[in-house]
């Protein structure tokens, strides 16, 4: 937990402040703030956050996720999206235009990957594909990272993902649940790069390093 590297790693139960402070990844006990996770400490004047190295995805309304159709059970598709609870895509929410049930069943067979939005969380999680970006994912490759690393893959104002897409000439979709879909000839290199981001997300200068890594890999490939 050295400060020289520019970040501090904390373990659960580490005393972070002697006064109750708000933030993510912390808990308050007897007016003191402690860490909840093994992760990187981010301190500001009013907040204390701990960014965990790994955590399971917790669905939020409005998240765009990549999931896999597991089964059909009238009137909904059951979609697996690597969260503890499954999500449900109702037939009425599959498309903004009208489609016959038989046609939908043909298109969304079990095993199909989809990109959708979480529309509602009540007793069950309801998905919707009525947004413009939503689609069925055909071809391409999948990669997965911890959901805590998703902001790093996208980068500040999408700088990282733009850079990767331009260099490798691929098309990438990132789900908030940590599933990434890559389409293009250099998909294999992108999968490796995403794994690298997952490992080294906390070290500064990430975009430059990934850029160099991609240049090297692309040269080797040719």
């Amino acid at each position: 937990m050295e400060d020289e590297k520019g970040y501090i790693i904390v373990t659960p139960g580490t005393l972070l402040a002697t006064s109750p402070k708000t933030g993510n990844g912390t808990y308050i006990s007897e007016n003191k703030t402690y860490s909840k996770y093994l992760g990187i400490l981010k301190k500001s004047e009013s907040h204390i956050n701990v960014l965990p190295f790994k955590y399971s995805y917790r669905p939020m309304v409005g998240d765009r996720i990549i999931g896999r159709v597991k089964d059909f059970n009238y009137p909904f598709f059951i979609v697996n999206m690597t969260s503890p609870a499954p999500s449900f895509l109702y037939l009425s929410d599959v498309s903004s235009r009208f489609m016959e049930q038989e046609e939908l069943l043909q298109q969304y067979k079990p095993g199909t990957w989809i990109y959708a939005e979480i529309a509602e969380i009540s007793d069950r999680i309801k998905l919707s594909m009525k947004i413009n970006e939503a689609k069925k994912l055909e071809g391409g490759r999948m990669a997965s990272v911890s959901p805590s690393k998703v902001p790093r893959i996208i980068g500040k104002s999408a700088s990282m993902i733009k850079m990767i897409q331009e260099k490798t000439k691929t098309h990438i979709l990132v789900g908030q649940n940590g599933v990434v879909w890559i389409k293009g000839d250099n998909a294999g290199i992108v999968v490796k790069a995403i794994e690298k981001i997952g490992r080294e997300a906390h070290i500064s200068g990430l975009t430059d390093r990934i850029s160099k890594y991609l240049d090297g890999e692309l040269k080797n490939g040719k």
Partner: protein
Amino acid sequence: MENKLIKDGVRLDGRKLDELRELKAELNVSRSTEGSAMFSIGDTIAVATVYGPMEVYPRFLENSEKAVIEVNYTMLPFSTDDRNRPGFSRRSVEISAVIKRVLERAIILEDLPKTKIIINIEILGADASTRCAAINAASMALVLAGIPMRDMVSSCSAGKVEDTLILDVAGKEDTEGDIDIPIAYFPLKDEILLLQMDGIMTKEELDKLMDMVKGGCKKIYDFQKETLLNIEKDLETK
């Protein structure tokens, strides 16, 4: 008795009275799980793997306010000198229940409603205080799996052999000693989560032993923490 277990304050294996055996730990030993850890103290080796949080089956166990945890402790057939019958036994069920109670206090269950966490603990080598090694391994694996925890739990055993109090019972001291006490300790709040004992001892002796064993637990806690803070090295190699 000809072969004394303790001679001039030195034990059979050359340790001092309040010395722990060698500690070793390895992180993420299994790739298919959310988090896993190996913890060994001397010849006792425990491997813990954590699955989840996941859907609760059977459904009636589901709790809408907090997570449900399941602990499976098993000793592998080759862990002891005589072959151990594989599968669950009366002993392993009891120890699983005991460990479950310890971990329920350490995990912030309210953060993960309607979910289940499965913790499997395998004992690869048994040389006394297996439940202590199991708790240590399980708490490290839970931290690695990214499950919200109040603090890490550390656990250690102590005992009484030939009227002398010793820390971290091992080998012959376990089979021929008078008393064996495993405890699980919560350093943050100075809380004792597990205390089991067989044998007879006075209150003064117990107080003394508690101080000793808390010291041992703190050493283990520091070791666990140090190992986890070195996670970066682990990430680079894998």
